[in-house]
């Protein structure tokens, strides 16, 4: 058996992955609880939640031998314990220190996982926690009931006087009963704003620590000190006695029914299981195959509505597994906003709503950066300083709200601030400076479009937060890469709203299929503007611009996919348009996206591939690259 135990122990690394994942989850919840804590009225349940999470991390880290995590979480726990008992007042400083402590644990875990080249230095965060846990700001005064004794011998009068004077300086001395003789006891009340530990250390100057007993209103002095059992195992019943009793019990008749307590456990929580992403991806792939097979069958056998319906339902159900709530992204913003606002001397509250809206896991990662950019912008550029706001007759503190909602097959995320709004005059001036053509009386929405131009920035000062000229154009391009759109609305003096729409998933796209040169090509529907017949002579070479097609007063560069010049599909990406000449328009359908890179290699101009109902592979065009190529050819 001992070899079995050693084996189980020796394989501790098998638990590392579980521990890392679990610790990360705990740290995320610690952070969000900390950010929601109101220092003026800390929520006891939240403090308990944080305590429990830190406690869990400490316990498992101890089993796995992660000493530095144990050491830090231990001090962390001490501070939390003081806070939840009210022995320490909670201020910004504690919250910040705990946030930093969470961060270093996170980094330590990243390091242990091999995601960080260097172990983070945890000592500063730990020292800070320790300092707060021993000498934090005072809580409201509490009444202590102090007993010293039984005294081995009387305390010298001068010493006793000094001690009492010292205590009177720390707090307010109440009734006292001094029995300063051998075997006697000194007892007094003290209203103290400081910590019990400080009181203890003062008393210990005069009296032996073992004789000091301090109680407060909540915890009266216990008459007898319980011996602390340091043994790791404490059996309340000897095994032999236990076995004997059990043997006897078994011979007796069963107990009466009414001896039973019947506690009803709280139930009804939505159950959940953990499933690895790989497994889900495999499932998604298989369902994709099934969708294709179904399409093939439908082509050969005509109506197969039931199979089609079931397949579609199955596909939706499987896709739903990959969906995660957008709170995964949103949760990082309260902290970001708080830190940014602090740095910029602004007062900003953030409000989140629709956090449970779900979208594909793969999208979550890719939408985080653009959203972060928008939120930074809102704090840095959108929001005024408290003084500016007061002058404008607005409350000193501004508000940024993030809202997510589902609209059909897409998710809409709004980043709204109640700041100064876009400055129309400044944008027009900057446009004139850059030589961007725009009429002085152009409607607002056209003016706002200018800020999406590459390199367009009106920020007067380049702060280290944003305003480096890589701005809204990058945001828009990244969102468009996901098949999404960005809209902006702004009103001077009352704020700006940026709305981002992205499809719920990247695994399936709505597409237009076209034929050209005997091949089928797939165009993501999100980038298709229109399709039209081309009249003879409409495609013209313009000097220095290559071939162009005039569409609604705009000369678009032309890109030929096939041989015929009769049909054009106008596509748009990154704010630029091009006309693709195709032989035929086949239709509109959902296609399952298959990575070309993973199955073949990266091909310029091609985003991915799909399998059509006839079993043939069709290429999904990368409209962004094609538009750029057409522009280059034209230039």
């Amino acid at each position, binding site marked *: *058996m*001992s070899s*079995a*135990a*050693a*084996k*189980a*122990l020796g*394989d*501790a690394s*098998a*638990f590392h992955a*579980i*521990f890392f994942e*679990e610790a990360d989850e705990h740290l995320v919840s610690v952070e969000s609880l900390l950010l929601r804590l109101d220092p003026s009225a800390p929520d006891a349940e939240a403090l308990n939640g944080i305590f*429990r999470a830190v*406690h*869990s991390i*400490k*316990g*498992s880290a*101890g*089993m*796995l031998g992660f000493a530095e995590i144990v050491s830090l979480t231990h001090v962390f726990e001490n501070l939390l314990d003081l806070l939840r008992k009210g022995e320490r007042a909670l201020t910004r400083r504690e919250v910040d220190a705990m946030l930093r402590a969470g961060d270093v644990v996170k980094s330590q875990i990243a390091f242990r996982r091999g995601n960080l080249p260097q172990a983070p230095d945890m000592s500063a965060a730990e020292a800070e926690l320790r300092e707060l846990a021993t000498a934090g700001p005072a809580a409201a005064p509490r009444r202590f009931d102090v007993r010293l004794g039984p005294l081995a011998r009387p305390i010298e009068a001068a010493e006793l006087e000094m001690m009492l004077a010292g205590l009177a300086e720390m707090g307010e001395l109440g009734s006292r009963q001094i029995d300063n003789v051998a075997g006697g006891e000194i007892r007094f009340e003290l209203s103290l704003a400081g910590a019990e530990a400080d009181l203890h250390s003062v008393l210990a100057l005069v009296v032996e620590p073992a004789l000091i007993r301090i109680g407060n209103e909540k915890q009266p002095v216990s008459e007898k000190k*319980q*011996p*602390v*059992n340091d*043994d*790791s*195992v*404490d*059996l*309340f*019943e000897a*095994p032999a006695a*236990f*076995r004997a*009793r*059990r043997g006897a*019990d*078994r011979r007796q008749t*069963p*107990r009466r*029914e009414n*001896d*039973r*307590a*019947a*506690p009803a*456990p*709280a*139930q009804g929580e939505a159950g959940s299981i953990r499933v690895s992403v790989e497994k889900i991806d495999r499932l998604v792939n298989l369902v994709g195959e099934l969708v294709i097979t179904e399409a093939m069958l439908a082509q050969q056998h005509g109506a197969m509505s039931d199979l089609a319906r079931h397949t579609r339902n199955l596909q939706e159900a499987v896709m739903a597994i990959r969906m995660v709530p957008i709170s995964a992204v949103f949760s990082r913003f309260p902290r970001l906003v708080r830190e940014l606002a602090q740095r910029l001397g602004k007062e900003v509250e953030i409000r989140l709503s629709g956090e449970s809206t779900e979208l594909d896991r793969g999208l979550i990662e890719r939408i985080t950066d653009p959203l972060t950019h928008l939120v930074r912008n809102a704090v840095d550029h959108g929001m005024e300083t408290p003084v500016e706001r007061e002058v404008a007759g607005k409350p000193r503190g501004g508000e940024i709200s993030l809202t997510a909602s589902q609209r059909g097959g897409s998710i809409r995320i709004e980043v709204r601030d109640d700041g100064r709004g876009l400055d129309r005059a400044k944008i027009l001036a900057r446009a004139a400076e850059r030589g961007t053509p725009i009429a002085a009386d152009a409607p607002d929405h056209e003016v706002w479009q200018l800020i999406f131009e590459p390199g367009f920035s009106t920020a007067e000062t380049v702060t280290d937060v944003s305003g480096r000229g890589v701005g809204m154009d990058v945001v828009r391009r990244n969102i468009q890469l996901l098949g999404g759109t960005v809209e902006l609305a702004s009103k001077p003096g009352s704020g700006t709203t940026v709305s981002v729409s992205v499809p719920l998933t990247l695994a399936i796209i709505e597409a237009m299929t076209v034929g050209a040169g005997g091949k089928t090509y797939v165009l993501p529907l999100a980038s298709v503007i229109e399709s039209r017949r081309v009249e003879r002579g409409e495609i013209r070479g313009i000097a220095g611009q290559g071939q162009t097609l005039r569409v609604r007063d705009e000369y678009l560069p032309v890109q030929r996919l096939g041989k015929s010049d009769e049909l054009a599909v106008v596509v748009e990406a990154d704010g630029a348009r091009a006309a693709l000449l195709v032989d035929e328009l086949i239709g509109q359908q959902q296609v399952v996206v298959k990575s070309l890179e993973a199955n073949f290699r990266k091909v310029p101009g091609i985003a991915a591939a799909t399998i059509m109902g006839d079993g043939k592979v069709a290429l999904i065009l990368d409209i962004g690259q094609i538009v750029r190529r057409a522009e280059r050819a034209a230039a």
Partner: protein
Amino acid sequence: MSHSILVVDDTRSMRKMVATVLQAAGYQVEEAADGAEALDKAKGRVFDLVVTDHNMPRMDGVTLVRALRGLAEYDDVALIVLSTETGAELKAKGREAGATGWMAKPFDPEKMLDIVKQFVS
């Protein structure tokens, strides 16, 4: 037939560690993530031993012990609390509730197996 043990802990890694140690020694292990779930499982079948954490959401370990002792079929089943908390007061509460023993976390696998063996054989 191998003995069955119910392992209760809200911390998944800890639960898995305890379970693995016991499984490696040939015990059949069932897991529960908190006291309430454990009580539910315990009502469905009688385990030969229960190892439970104390500090858990929904229902803590000492409350679980008390609830289990309320069930006739758990009258003579050893209930071991496994907790980082080892304060005498809490231990006394556990004992009063009917716990058979109290083990400190982090635990020594050998020691745990030794204790378990004594109570299930």
